[in-house]
């Protein structure tokens, strides 16, 4: 990719990701509703919601909230841009973590018990998912010798062949990142929560819209990550993404919310098994079977 391509990709991401993710969210809500025996909202509902939120009055518990949310949105976008311009995968992951930390800090700064508990739980979720994300990057590195997404993308054989564990692990943490049951600890889209809206409790109107927007960017980024596993075969990749997303919806609709203890334990164990396992096996295969 030359520079113009990169810049173009960056802008495309900024412009198209919300549209894609919004549609996906709309679809998600319809499919969920159907699974619940309901008709569900119109496809464009997420957009209606988003734009409405931007029109609401701005209320907050203090004046510093928007600062952190801005950081959240900004660094999520940067992470996405870094990713879609073929940048460095580790930097992408770090930027994403930075964005999440901004989000968490915003909730902490609100100084309200519910958003605080939500923030703590969000941190637990980040802690549960972060190792796997890093390991996916490591997996790509072992398989391709580079953290550069450009190089990973250009791989002639699909990475799913060598990194099936990583793929599984990524699907697993995608459930966490998309805030789906059973991992919707810190906040959840619609089902009720013991901590009300958790981390987003104190963010209203436009602020909530910013969160939603950032979440959309993040979703696209994660789906992009999944895409990389099938990069040489775009059709298969899209089919795989559809299947994965459907499974996420299904999981959301067929599970109760679980405890943080369970989430953390299960995530780390699963990560250690599929992520580290895959990494180690691959390492020894690459060495030609001689440990």
């Amino acid at each position, binding site marked *: 990719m030359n520079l113009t391509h990169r810049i173009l990709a960056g802008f495309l991401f900024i412009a198209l990701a919300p549209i894609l993710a919004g549609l996906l969210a709309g679809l998600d809500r319809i499919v*969920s509703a159907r699974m*619940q*025996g309901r008709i569900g909202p119109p496809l464009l509902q997420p957009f209606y919601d988003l734009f409405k939120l931007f029109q609401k009055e701005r209320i907050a518990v203090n004046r510093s909230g928007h600062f952190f949310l801005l950081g959240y949105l900004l660094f999520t976008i940067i992470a996405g841009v870094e990713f879609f311009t073929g940048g460095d995968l580790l930097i992408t992951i770090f930027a994403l973590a930075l964005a999440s930390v901004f989000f968490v800090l915003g909730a902490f700064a609100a100084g309200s018990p*519910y958003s605080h508990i939500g923030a703590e739980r969000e941190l637990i979720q980040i802690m549960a998912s972060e190792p796997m994300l890093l390991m996916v990057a490591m997996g790509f590195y072992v398989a391709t010798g580079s953290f550069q997404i450009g190089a990973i993308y250009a791989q002639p054989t699909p990475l799913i062949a060598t990194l099936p564990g990583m793929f599984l692990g990524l699907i697993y943490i995608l459930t966490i990142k998309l805030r789906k*049951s059973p991992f919707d600890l810190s906040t959840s889209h619609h089902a*009720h*929560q013991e901590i009300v809206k958790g981390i987003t409790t104190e963010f209203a109107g436009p602020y909530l819209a910013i969160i939603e927007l950032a979440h959309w960017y993040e979703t696209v980024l994660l789906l992009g990550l999944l895409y990389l596993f099938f990069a040489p075969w775009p059709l298969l990749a899209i089919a795989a993404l559809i299947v994965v997303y459907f499974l996420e919806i299904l999981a959301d609709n*067929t599970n109760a919310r*679980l405890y*943080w203890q369970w989430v953390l334990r299960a995530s780390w164990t699963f990560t250690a098994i599929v992520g580290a396992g895959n990494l180690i096996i691959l390492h020894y295969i690459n060495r030609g079977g001689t440990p």
Partner: protein
Amino acid sequence: MANRTVIPFGPQHPVLPEPIHLDLVIEDEHVVEAIPSFGFIHRGLEKLVEKKDFTEFAFIAERICGICSYIHGMGYCQAVETVMGIEIPERAKWLRTMWSELSRIHSHMMWLGLLADAFGFENLFMACWRLREGILDVIEETSGGRVIFGAAKVGGCRRDVPDDLLARIPAQLKAVEDELRAVTNVFRDDFSVRQRLCGVGQLSKQDAYDLGAVGPMLRASGVALDSRLDGYAAYDKIQVEPIVETAGDCWARTMVRIREIYQSFEILRQVIPNVPPGPVDMKITGSPKGEFFARLEQPRGEVIYYVKGNGTKFLDRFRVRTPTFANIPPLLKMLQGCQLADVPVIVLTIDPCISCAER
């Protein structure tokens, strides 16, 4: 005190459809202390007996609660009837039994949904409430209201149910029951549901009995106590076995209620074809004088109506002790040391009905 978080849980809280408030003291997510507070729904309707005469008071009794509305109306009437020495017509007894059981089914199905909502299982909530509509249809068609039946009156029932309608109901119920199996299987077998229910909010048999727990709460802890065995209305002519589980945890309570739903379907199968012909109400003359304690089985357990009449149209005292009220002390016990995530689940497994409890 070092690392304890103190938060108000409620009164406005999405998982609690009704306002109750808990002062929660938590450490990480362990609940160290939980003190409930009440009075958000306290109306003081018991004192309305001084303003409404004893026949009109049936309307108020029905509105003690919109979930267990019918049995409230009926229990009040039953207490007054006993004081007045009235034996109501046979058909009225059978209809009362039918409505009681319908009310139990709708209440339990509603509760199952709310419980699912409490542990974040939206789809299960929807599934329960979708099927519940089938029961509400039957209720509305027979009584005229979806939640407030408006069918109880001193001396019988306020309306009759035509026989052709009675003949149609069993099929309607059967359809709901068949579909319900798949949903209740989820409560029984699903991994995540069991994670959230098994071993949570344990209440030992002794504690349950000593603290005065009633209804499914008590039965889930292994005490076979069901006021329907007292044989009011037509219950003396049908087979009722108390449903008992022994684990005493949230899951056991769920199982008790689920099994009670099927039991109620079974009872309805006995009742509906056997509703005898005849009048459904009778003329009331005079006013109640004397006192009586009526004991009935609500969906949430044993309910007590105490009526004291002085020979005028206005009672001296009407009192209802609702099952939720009796289940509050055990609730306090169960909340100690649970997880924050368990708080709504535990609160819900007593099947709290605050408007009943506070009147």
